[in-house]
Structure formats: C-alpha cells, structure tokens
C-alpha cells in the first residue's frame, strides 16, 4: 500500500464527497420534496408554484417589462400562484401568512 499517500487518500475522500456527497444530497432532497408535494396534493387539488423569492422576481419582471411578448404568460403564472396561495392551507414553499396577505395579482 506504499502508493497510498495522504495526498492520494485526501483526494479520494474529496472526490467521493464532491461527487457522491452532492449527488446523494440532491437525490435525497428531490425525492423528499416529491413525497411532500404528493402529500400536499392528497389534501388539496392545487399547490403554489413559486417560492417567495421566485415570485417576487417574476412580479418585478412583469412590472418592468409590460410590453414583452411573454408578459401575458408570466402574469398568468404569477396570478395563478397568488390565487392558489390564498385558497390553500398547505404550502410547499416557506410562505408566511403575512407574505400571502401582502400579495396582489398583477
């Protein structure tokens, strides 16, 4: 085992962590999220589609690009998310009641 220097072992450990650690984390996280979505949809027909940060960014874009060819689609997606947030009790993303109350359709 003479060739196994600390440097080789360190690189091996780093590689395993960087690849298998990240891939494993992503796999577990996405499968858990899937289970949670399935659980939410068991109790209600619809679910919100955007996180607070993503919805805020979408809203900003709609307001600053009113003539964009895709603004109608963006508005539809934004408003659908707002409607669902108001009509449902279980949320996938971390929405507070105060944040939902402040939301407006665009």
């Amino acid at each position, binding site marked *: 085992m003479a060739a196994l220097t600390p*440097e*080789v072992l360190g*690189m091996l450990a780093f590689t*395993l962590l960087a690849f298998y650690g990240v891939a494993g984390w*992503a796999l577990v996280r996405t499968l858990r*999220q899937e289970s949670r979505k399935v659980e939410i949809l068991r109790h209600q027909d619809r679910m919100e*589609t955007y*996180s607070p940060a993503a919805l805020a960014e979408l809203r900003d874009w709609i307001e600053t690009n009113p003539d*964009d060819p895709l603004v109608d689609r*963006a508005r539809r997606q934004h408003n659908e998310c707002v409607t669902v947030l108001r009509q449902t009790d279980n949320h996938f993303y971390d929405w507070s009641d105060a944040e939902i109350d402040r939301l407006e359709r665009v």
Partner: protein
Amino acid sequence: MGDVPTKTARAEWGSRFGFLMAMIGAMVGAGNIWRFPYVMGNNGGGAFVLAFLTLLVVLAVPGLMAEVALGRYANKGVIGAFRAVVGRGGLVGLGVVVLLVNIALMSYYSPVVGWTLYYAVHSLLFTFTSSGFQAEPFMNEFFASSLLVIALHTIVMGSIAAILVLGIRRGVERIVVYAVPALVLSLVVMAIRGLTLPGASEGLAFAFGIQWEYLARSDTWITALGQALFSTGLGWGIALTVGSYLREYDDVPLGGGLFTAIGESSVGILAALAIFPIVFAVEGVEPDAGAGLAFVSLVQVFPEIPLGGIVAILFFLGFFLATFTSGLLITEVSVTTLSEETRFDRTQTTLGVCGAIWLLGLPSAYSVDILDYLDFVFGNWGLPLATISIIGVIGWVMGPQRLRLLSVNRNAGIHVGRWWDPVIKYVIPSVMVFIVAYFAYDNFGTPEMIGGMFVLVVFPIIGYALMSVLEGRGGQPEGAEVSGGDD
C-alpha cells in the same frame, strides 16, 4: 395521463425517480466507462478532477437546467420546442439540425452497443476465463466479422424499437428504473472486489494522485471541458426531450441540472474505482482507453483475479446497460419530435426512426474505420453544433431571464438566481464556439475536419430549407414567437 402518448394527451413520467433515472441512463454511456477513468489518470489525476468539477458546475449544471427547462416550457420535442420559441419558419430548422445530429449519433452508437452486448453474452458464457483464451485475437476476430456486428446492430435497434413502442412510462421508464441502479450496483461490487486485491493501491494512485502542474496546462482544461460537456450530453436534445415529459409540479434545476450532471459524472468516478485497482493489480497489464481498455486490458485481467469470471459478468452487463439506456434515450429524441410533427402515431414513428437508424448504421457496423470517422466528425463538430443551436436559441432568442422566471424557478427544488443568465447567454455559447474552432484548427485539412465543416454548413442549410418549405407560409401562431426580448 395515459401511458401511451397520443396526439391529444401527452405522456408524463410516472415518478420522480423515473425521470431522474432516465436522465442518468441517457447521459451515462460508453465514455463514462472506457474513457473517463483513463483520461482522468492521464491528465493529472486529482488535478483533472478539480478542473472537471469546476467546469461541470460552471457550465454543465446551468446548461442542463436550461435544456430541461426549455423542454418543460414548450412541452414538446426538439422541433416543437424551437417553434415555441422562434415561431413558424425556417429557424425551426435548428430543431431539425438537432434531430439529424441525434440520428447520425445513434447510427454509429448502435454498433458500439452491439459490441458491449457481445462481450456481455461472452462474460455470461465465462469465455474470458476459459483456458487458452487470448484477449487481443478475440477482439480482432470480432471486429473483422462484419456480419456478426451487423447482426448485433440489428438486435440492438430491434430491442430499442420494442421498448420505445411501449411509450414513455411503460417502455423507457420501466427499463431505466432497473437498469441504472443495476449498472451502479455492478460497478460498486466490482470496485469492492478491485480494492481488496493486492496492488490495488497502484490503481488508486494512478487515478487519484494529484499532479498539480497539470492545472497549469491548457490541454488539461480542454480535455476536462470536452469531458464535462460531452459526457453530460448537454445540448443534444436529450435533456430537452426528457424534460418535456415532466409533470406539472416537477422541479427542473435540482433534478434535471445538479443531480444529473454530478450524478452521471459520479458513475465515471465509480468506473475509475472499479477498473484501475483491478488493472494495476495484475502485473504486465497497461491502463488504456476505449476498446483497448474494455476489450483487452480488462479481459486479460479477469482470469488472473479470484472470482474473475463473476467480475467480468458484472462489468460487461453494467457496461451494456450503460450504452443501451443511452441508445434508448438518444433514439427517443427523434421518436418524440417526429411523432408530434407528423401524422404517424408513436408505433409507426418508432418503427420508422429505428429502421432509418438501422439502415444508416450499416456502414458503421460493417467497418470500424467508418465508425471511428463518424465518431470523430460528430463528436467534435456535430454535437457542438446541436448544443450551440439549443443553448443559442435559449440565450439569444428566448432569453435566459425569461426561461428562468417562467420555467426554471417554477416548482423548483432550489432557487436559481441572476448569475445563471450570463452563463447561458454568453459563457456556454462562447465555449462551444471555441471548441468547434479549436478542433477545426487542431485537425486542419484532415478528412475529419472536412467532414466536420460539411456538417456545420450543410445540416443548418437542410434544416432551414426544409422548415421554410414545410411551414414558412403557415403564418405565425399566436404567442409562439418570443424573440425580441433581451436580458
């Protein structure tokens, strides 16, 4: 949704795991098994891993997010997705370019799948551990037998057709959810066997020893760049097609981007752990790449190690599954888009596409030289052309910000910020143009370079002319044309 797609109801993945395994199954191919470990060991070991990982995170992860998101945004295959962005007309021909590249790629990849099938069958017969077996004459005899390779090519395309006619959920998904874990498991068992052999540490040192000076060499970065882009299949239309079957509330960036890019590369790392300890454990066997590694070096090793016959079965079955699932998804790109664009149903389209690929693949099955030529031409110029088409349309017509807001961050498992936009718009297209130019410069005047230039010029002309004729006078569908915006 129904299992079998029709003109009115589009199929969807039956589970999140099915989608993830389809992505990994598509992207993990022969290159992960017989190229990556050698390239890694020969380009500075750990230093190469660092360069590769950097480029993977900077380019492949965002690029895959974009491609999958476009598929989900359009809910169509490659041609329909291009139409959804550029509107009706000749520019939809860029989707035809992607289609043509995929058909060409599969025409020479199918015989390679046939090679792995042949070796998998012989591993089950314990041929490699029988007395008097000689690896190199066995391989040479096999490659010289054109009829045998044509027969294998026929079996492969027939099997792919049989699975694809069953549809996305009952066909593709049902295969990949078992095949991909089986591939990983076979490599894990092989790695455990290899790492417990005396002398295995030499193999680990070859693969994971750090030669820092390699990080200062341009060759290391160009090789890592090619590996990061080609291994992940970025921009080939596969991720777009797989993404088009996502369900309403599915995430794109976490599963389609991060997990796919890092996960498929992990299989290459696993292959290095499985292969090199075994190769270095036997004296007199040299590490190699390609057919020389899989069909000579490793085959020479199996009789020399305890339980070598079993290890051979694990390796070649895993290798076959890796190539077969890639072939399945590469073919699905054409089946999906042509069944949407023509009046033929899925069964008719599958039979037509597989028949055409079979016919076009006969020269590659007949001669390894033709296969090598096509591999070089399409690997260096055809596939980058497809990537430039897809990422270029996202970056410069659709606009990355719009795609990020409308598709990437919708139902996302991780939030993708503004940093993503310039990567898609400027970095990936620039890198792809650099790769095309670099390969052209490096192979200037060779028949391969001339073939590559032919593909670069003629494929877009064919695509543009074809779609101009087919739908140029069809008018603009409402809401289809999204060009004009800028990020």
